[in-house]
């Protein structure tokens, strides 16, 4: 479980996040949704410590990460896997080396055990026989899969995904979403997904936080999202005619 408390952040005097609090449950796919530029990525970065929030804290199973000292921080970091918006694979390395990288730097596993673990994870995300391909040679969808494999290779307790299906076709998007969802349940991970894709929201959102211009306006599950009563959320959800028709019913 991850808990955030009063997280605020501003850049050059321009406030981007206004005191966001909330909870993300273990074994569930938690979503942060909202329009472009509302501060979703900034919030995610504050939670994983890539940027320091101006105020507020993030707690990982009651451990205060934001104000932790180096040892605790690196201990928590070992339990974090992250999938980036652009996959962020190391392009000087091949698929296998990419997935193995966290094991190399975070563990002292013997080499053959590492290789087994890497192959297991690659198989889990549906990739086989691409171990020696360079990261720059594979398609966007495969990159996401490799990114997921790299994120889960060290058995994380927490998985973060920033727009896991940006730039993918709808079908591949759903496959990636479902993969994340399944992995979350299979390994009982606290998963946090940032997205603005309504398909993901309705498909895998077990717990959803809606951000609007730096404020949290709503929180709930995908069953309730269509009748939240929040105008901004309705504007976000009912974007096209088909969805509007749904609302009319």
């Amino acid at each position, binding site marked *: 479980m991850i808990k955030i408390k009063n997280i605020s952040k501003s850049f050059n005097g321009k406030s981007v996040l206004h005191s966001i609090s909330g909870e993300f449950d273990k074994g569930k796919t938690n979503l942060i949704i909202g329009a472009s530029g509302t501060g979703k990525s900034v919030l995610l970065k504050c939670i*994983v*410590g890539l940027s320091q929030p101006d105020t507020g804290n993030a707690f990982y199973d009651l451990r205060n990460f934001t104000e932790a000292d180096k040892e605790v921080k690196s201990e928590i*970091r*070992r339990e974090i896997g*992250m999938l980036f918006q*652009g996959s*962020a694979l190391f*392009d000087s390395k091949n698929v296998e080396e990419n997935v193995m990288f966290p094991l190399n*730097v*975070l563990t002292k596993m013997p080499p053959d055990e590492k290789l087994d673990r890497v192959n297991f994870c690659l198989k889990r995300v549906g990739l086989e026989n691409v171990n020696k391909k360079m990261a720059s040679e594979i398609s966007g969808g495969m990159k996401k899969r490799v990114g997921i494999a790299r994120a889960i290779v060290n058995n994380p307790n927490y998985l973060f995904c920033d727009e896991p299906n940006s730039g993918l076709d709808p079908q591949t998007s759903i496959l990636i979403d479902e993969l994340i969802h399944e992995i979350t349940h299979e390994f009982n991970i606290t998963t946090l997904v940032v997205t603005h894709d309504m398909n993901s929201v309705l498909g895998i959102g077990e717990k959803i936080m809606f951000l609007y211009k730096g404020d949290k306006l709503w929180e709930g599950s995908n069953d309730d999202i269509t009748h939240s009563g929040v105008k901004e959320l309705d504007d976000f959800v009912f974007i096209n005619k088909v969805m509007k028709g749904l609302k009319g019913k």
Partner: protein
Amino acid sequence: MKEFGRYLLFLQSLVVRRETFITYYRLVIEECMQIGVKSISLFVLVSTFMGAVTTVQTAFNLVTPLVARYVIAQVVREMTVLELAPTIMAIIFAGKIGSSMAGGIGTMRITEQIDALEVMGINSSSYLVLPKIIASMIMYPMLVIFAGVCSIFGGYLVGTLTGILTPTEFIQGLRSLFNEFTITFALIKSFVFAFLIGSISCFKGYYTQGGALEVGIASTEAVTSSVIAVLLADYFLANLLL
């Protein structure tokens, strides 16, 4: 000035929170190979021609018969060791290696690869940059020595083949009034230049923001800034040590 302060902070961040020695060892070796392979052919080409041109031009300027012709070789040697090999090559090194370092790290920044390292708890600046700086400081002096040899050899080839002076005269010139300190000085210069080029280029790349366009700007800036730094350092070192 603010930029300079950030640069110093950047240098400090390289040495705190380091990885294990063996990690760096591997990375440094890898970088050394990269640098060597990338620049050796260009260095050979440029320095050989520089030696050749220096020989021809010195001969052209020495019209009076009062000066012995072996002096030409002496001039080539002094020019090569003091300025051409360490300084002119530094400019080429900045253009070739500096820009590729800035571009590489800049790309890693904008594609979130640096964030990925940080999330894993790695000190990305030290992990990426320190090996590059160390590798430059190992490789660049070697390349300078090599370039010096090539330059003098280029001078020898052109000088003897075109009949400007005989091989014996050339060798005589090379050996006359030789001061070993010029070599030491050249090596000191190359260490300093390698450090400047490596660190400034990585600094520019590391703080890239935006997209592919900014990566291009960062590598151009890396070359400009490191060339300026090299020339300033050249002047100060000459004042200080000669």
